[in-house]
């Protein structure tokens, strides 16, 4: 949304904004906690509030056409997009393309956690969506893997919803999250945080029953009974579409190979926000996405 608004302000008249969900705002809608917008809006907003400010701007601009429930299935290097929406398959050619496809969560499978595969193992973001968007509580006794901000925030969220968070397990020697979150999400509720520990095994036939926690320094282990394991072990830029268009992708990070922010190996395709790289702060996503909108506008002027 920030890129679309910025592009329009820089003089682009014909902008199509494709969104695969039925609402604008993406993941911000499920991030109901505060901490968004301190830089960009100089206010401490929740995720939905931050998104809403942009939705209102988009709605006020006639040059931006929004197409919801629109899912791009193919992209070529000539910027021809094929997308599906209920009842329609459209093919369009863009002169400039801004990719703001965000990121996805690293999974249990990517961290190779041994053990069984019962119900109750969820990426933290899925659990967040279940609770905050769908009003469903995925579990009552929770162990969280990873002490990044998402993991910490979900520890508080589960506790407030009446679940017991048994522990947060972090393989590193310190947290990757904000100190504020360690204090207000864990210490407030006396949730233990284990550093230099990992989950060595998950047990349970139909539903998670317990996990084996291992101290990575001395190899000592202990068991924690639980019905849910949340996986919060990092994010990966989502770039499969531009990869399909033969944009060069770094295999390690899944981000586009790039010399300058928002740029990739194909002229006129700009990649911004968490699909360019995983940012810590939404305000910085906005800052660089605004830049992407402006860069796209510049690029279009150069074509004429």
């Amino acid at each position, binding site marked *: 949304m920030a890129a679309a608004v910025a592009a329009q302000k820089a003089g682009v008249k014909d902008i199509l904004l494709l969104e695969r969900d039925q609402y604008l705002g993406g993941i911000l809608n499920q991030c109901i906690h505060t901490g968004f917008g301190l830089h960009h809006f100089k206010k401490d907003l929740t995720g939905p509030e931050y998104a809403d400010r942009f939705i209102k701007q988009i709605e006020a601009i006639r040059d931006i056409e929004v197409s919801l429930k629109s899912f791009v299935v193919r992209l070529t290097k000539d910027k021809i997009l094929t997308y599906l929406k*209920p009842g*329609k*398959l459209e093919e369009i050619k863009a002169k400039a393309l801004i990719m703001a496809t965000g990121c*996805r969560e690293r999974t249990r499978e990517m961290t190779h956690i041994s053990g069984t595969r019962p119900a109750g193992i969820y990426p933290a973001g899925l659990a967040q969506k279940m609770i905050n968007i769908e009003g469903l509580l995925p579990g009552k006794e929770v162990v969280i893997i990873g002490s990044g901000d998402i993991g910490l925030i979900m520890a508080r969220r589960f506790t407030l919803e009446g679940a017991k968070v048994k522990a947060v397990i972090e393989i590193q020697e310190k947290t990757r999250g904000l100190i504020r979150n360690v204090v207000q999400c864990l210490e407030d509720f006396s949730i233990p945080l284990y550093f230099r520990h990992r989950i060595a095994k998950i047990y349970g036939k*139909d539903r998670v029953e317990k996990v084996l926690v291992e101290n990575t320094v001395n190899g000592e282990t202990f068991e924690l009974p639980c019905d849910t394991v949340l996986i919060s072990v990092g994010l990966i830029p989502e770039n499969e579409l531009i990869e399909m268009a033969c944009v060069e992708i770094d295999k390690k990070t899944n981000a586009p190979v790039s010399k300058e922010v928002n740029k990739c190996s194909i002229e006129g395709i700009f990649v911004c926000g968490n699909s360019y790289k995983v940012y810590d702060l939404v305000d910085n996503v906005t800052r660089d996405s605004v830049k992407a909108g402006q860069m796209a506008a510049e690029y279009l002027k150069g074509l004429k």
Partner: protein
Amino acid sequence: MRAAYDIIIIGGGVTGAAIARELSRYKLKIALLEKEAELAFGVSKSNSGIIHPGTQNPPNSLKGRLCVQGNKLTKQIAKELGVDFKEVGELIVIFNQADLTRLLEIKKEAEELGVGGLRIVDRLWLRKHEPNLNPEVYAALYAPTAGIISPYRWVYDLAENAARNGVEIFLEHKVIDIRQSGSLRLNAAASRFEVLCSQGNREVNSQVSLGAKYIINAAGLYADEISGMVGINDFTIKPRKGEEFILDKKREYLSNHIIFPLPSPISKGILVIKTSDGNPMIGPTAQEIEDKEDLSTSDEGLKKVLEGAKRMIPSIDENDIISYFAGLRPTAGKDFIIRHEDKAPGFINVAGIQSPGLTSAPAIALMVTNLLKNNGLKPRKKWFFQKYRQRTIHLFDIPFNKTKELMKEDPSYGEIVCRCEMVSAKEVRDAIKRGARTLDGIKFRTRAQAGRCHGGFCTTRIMKIMAEELNIPLTEITKRGEGSEIVKENRDSRTA
């Protein structure tokens, strides 16, 4: 007794489903019993999907004969049922000249069994046809008739076709006892067996009893226990665990063939497998275990598989792995056990169906039919047997112009639910109409949740479609049957 059947098949895996489909040609009243929430949830779900050509089996073995026959039958039936079968071929590779003797032996043994088209290919051929293969590979045995199929869709479609032809399928029916009629002077019309099942809800002890003239025991890992119920205790099923690792679809063209190392006495080794879903698979390990429910994977398994696979295709990277699972092969000695039990007339054991069980299944079905005929059954063919089945639509394997056509009929083909594998709401609804009752059932049928994000994006969408179509609360939706509910509570108590 609820009902009496001519034949009860115990076990809804590929063996049971193939037998059910074959027998549904005849005028018989048939029941297929499965203890899990859906078919193929036992041994079959962890199958790697290879339709073996018939190499690597001892020349005089039952499984060797059935595998070669099954390979041909699978091809034909897959066509009838609209199931994707891709004849990609296999390579058994060797790294030095010394192993050539063994490779030639394998070739000779297979040819004696009737496997066609076998030839030894050299480095030059391999470089051209399998460019990612380790250049150190010296030569390979090429078997062009090897193929790949989706093991679960194969089971579902066989069973769907059997049901279409009258077979009754009972899910969550676990056989707990079989009683034999005391009298041996049998009235031809009477049931010889009474099959006692616990039904549905595991906590509520609800039982049902079904009568049968014939029982076919295709109970996989539990075939020994079922057999024991009629007093036949001369074999035990030992689970042999195999861990497999699935790679990202991006690496679909990692290999052009299924690639085997030279086999060891107990297993075919670590393979690089193509799958009909596109994602390459590496594995499996082979480990004898005791627990028939131990489906855990291990750090050591991963290490072993990666090592084995990289030896053949060095460019395989740990980061390509998007999923893994363990399966159990139900072994009962070296060969299959398929026989009528004269001590329990009417009872047919189909046990120890380990590899190449998937391939052999249609041939096993023919063999079982003959066993029935040789033991008193005189089935008459139906006047009309519907051998065809309308192919299931998957957006990921049809061209866009076809998608466009389909959307005119149903707009929800354009409503994408699973972004990694491109699965629409319509396909999920279809899967439910065809019998899916669990999230795993949806995954196996449609591939939704099977991609790189592992359901992070689509799980709640699928749950909502299931709640709507099945008219059940969200809190009752399970991963794979009762006890595996996805969520514990719903804020909205009206539907909780």
